[in-house]
């Protein structure tokens, strides 16, 4: 059992199943994965229940039921090491390749090698880079210069060449390599890239202050497939489906213009005002801040765009149309 899934042996209290079709799960440390419970996420089949409006606390909403905090449904759990959301943690320790616009250039940030034990292998890093580039992040201009922030990662000439070619395929130009490793600097010079070698100290002072301000939204056009994990210290917008076995962990909101079937966490660093929106909300599990809700046993027959948010101590789901009406009315 993956230790990241909140699990406990605490026996489940004999609370009656909630009749509001949403989960009330304040503490993710008290899961009872073996106790099945009724639909945790489901709402659009109910005609405008009060509990779905964010501003009206549900008057007779039942006591939080820890059994709602189930692990992802067993039948959909397969061989693929399917990533589990982790408790909120500062951005620096999240091993993730990032592309970031800054002053008309694009920074390609590689996760530091010293981030043990979670350090990424070259293969993982390469896959993630290719995925990101193919997902067509749209905030860059064609032929933007790219500055590779390799930090303390050791890269050989072949790997630098590969990165440069992958960028060229996405119509981006690798202009400069910043590294704190002499070997990487030498390798970059041999393949004709301009290099700036930095001391590890300047590299440290360059990492952003963790968790203060959200990064700009990550906008990707792709099918997020099984085995892919996207982490971003800001809002994530996906134009496409988020498939079972994939996961998105965002410090901001998560918007899916497609079917959301994977595991998605919004407000991962603790902001429970974050939301998850999808044209078709059919997730394995969703989390907002520390609140968890999982897929209903009986899926909807029909899907409408929905919004998941936290209100009165639990994850609520509302039809997008009604949600925005509620929000806009005084």
């Amino acid at each position, binding site marked *: 059992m993956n230790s990241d899934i909140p699990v406990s042996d605490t026996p489940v209290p004999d609370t009656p199943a909630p009749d509001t079709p949403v989960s009330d799960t304040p503490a993710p440390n008290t899961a009872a994965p073996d106790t099945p419970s009724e639909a945790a996420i489901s709402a659009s089949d109910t005609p405008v229940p009060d509990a779905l409006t964010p501003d009206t606390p549900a008057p007779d909403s039942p006591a939080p039921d820890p059994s709602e905090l189930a692990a992802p449904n067993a*039948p*959909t759990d*397969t*061989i*693929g090491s399917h990533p589990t959301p982790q408790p909120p943690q500062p951005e620096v320790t999240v091993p993730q390749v990032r592309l970031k616009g800054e002053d008309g250039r694009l920074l390609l940030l590689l996760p530091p090698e010293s981030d043990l034990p979670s350090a990424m292998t070259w293969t993982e890093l*390469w*896959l993630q880079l*290719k*995925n990101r580039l*193919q997902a067509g992040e749209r905030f860059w201009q064609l032929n933007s210069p790219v500055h590779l922030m390799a930090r303390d990662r050791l890269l050989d000439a072949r790997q630098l060449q590969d990165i440069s070619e992958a960028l060229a395929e996405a119509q981006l130009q690798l202009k400069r390599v910043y590294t704190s490793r002499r070997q990487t600097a030498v390798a970059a010079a041999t393949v004709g890239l301009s290099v700036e070698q930095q001391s590890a100290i300047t590299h440290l002072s360059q990492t952003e202050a963790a968790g203060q301000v959200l990064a700009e939204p990550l906008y990707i056009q792709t*099918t997020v*497939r*099984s*085995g*892919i994990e996207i982490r971003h210290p800001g809002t994530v917008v996906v134009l496409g*489906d988020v*498939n*079972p*076995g994939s996961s998105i962990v965002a410090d901001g909101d998560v918007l899916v213009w497609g*079917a959301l*079937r994977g595991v998605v966490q919004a407000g991962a660093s603790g902001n429970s005002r974050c939301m998850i929106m999808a044209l078709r909300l059919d997730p394995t599990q969703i989390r907002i801040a520390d609140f968890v809700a999982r897929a209903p046993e009986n899926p909807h027959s029909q899907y409408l765009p929905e919004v998941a948010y936290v209100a009165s101590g639990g994850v609520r789901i509302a039809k997008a149309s009604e949600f925005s009406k509620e929000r806009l009315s005084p």
Partner: protein
Amino acid sequence: MSRIIVVTSGKGGVGKTTCSANIGMALAQRGHKVAVIDADFGLRNLDLLLGLENRIVYTAVEVLAGQCRLEQALVKDKRQPNLVLLPAAQNRTKDAVTPDQMRKLVNALTKVFNYILIDSPAGIEMGFQNAIAAAKEALIVTTPEIAAVRDADRVVGLLEANDVKKLHLIINRIKPAMVQQDKMMSVSDVQEILAIPLIGVIPDDERVIVSTNKGEPLVLSQTASTAALAFQNIVRRLDGEKVPFIDLTAPNDDLISRIRRFFGSRD
């Protein structure tokens, strides 16, 4: 330009080797020069399905070690002169070959063959990496089961990241009766998740198992079967023909006669 196609799935036992053998044979029957490569080093069995086991002298590993020439390792099919098999070594580990070596082998084969089919091992480890290294296209095989579809999805992502972008889906072992009772994922359920173009749907049929055991791909059989027809249709679609999908929900005997009529009226 030869077409280099990897047959892969992620999950084991879903029918990659069965598809490789039948599609390879059906391509050869249509007059293409075909090489099928067993990339399942250590656990080869494409030779068994093709009934060629007893004719293997050398394998890809000896070719790479310079112990024989490539032509010497190619096993010719006595029933179908257009088809050859490049066998994998049985006794070596999967690490006996690298992606670069695989590219070299396949590259040499493109000089002679129009179609090169690579039967990939299960999983996404080194053996899989070798199998996809030279491929320009992929046939993703899945069965209509959640676990198989999940793994197929993973493999699609990996193929895309490795610049294999022409992908087609084969759904194998569908049981129409179970689908109708809502006990099995339907073709459209699978397609909705994987979102890649469908090239074939093969019914679950015990004749497939019988043919496996005889070492005689189903498409060689004299008696018509829906499964064999499904393989032949895949091959026609690979060749660029537009072939309507077989309606598997119709009763079986009736179906064969309807297909006969369909072909009769068309050809």
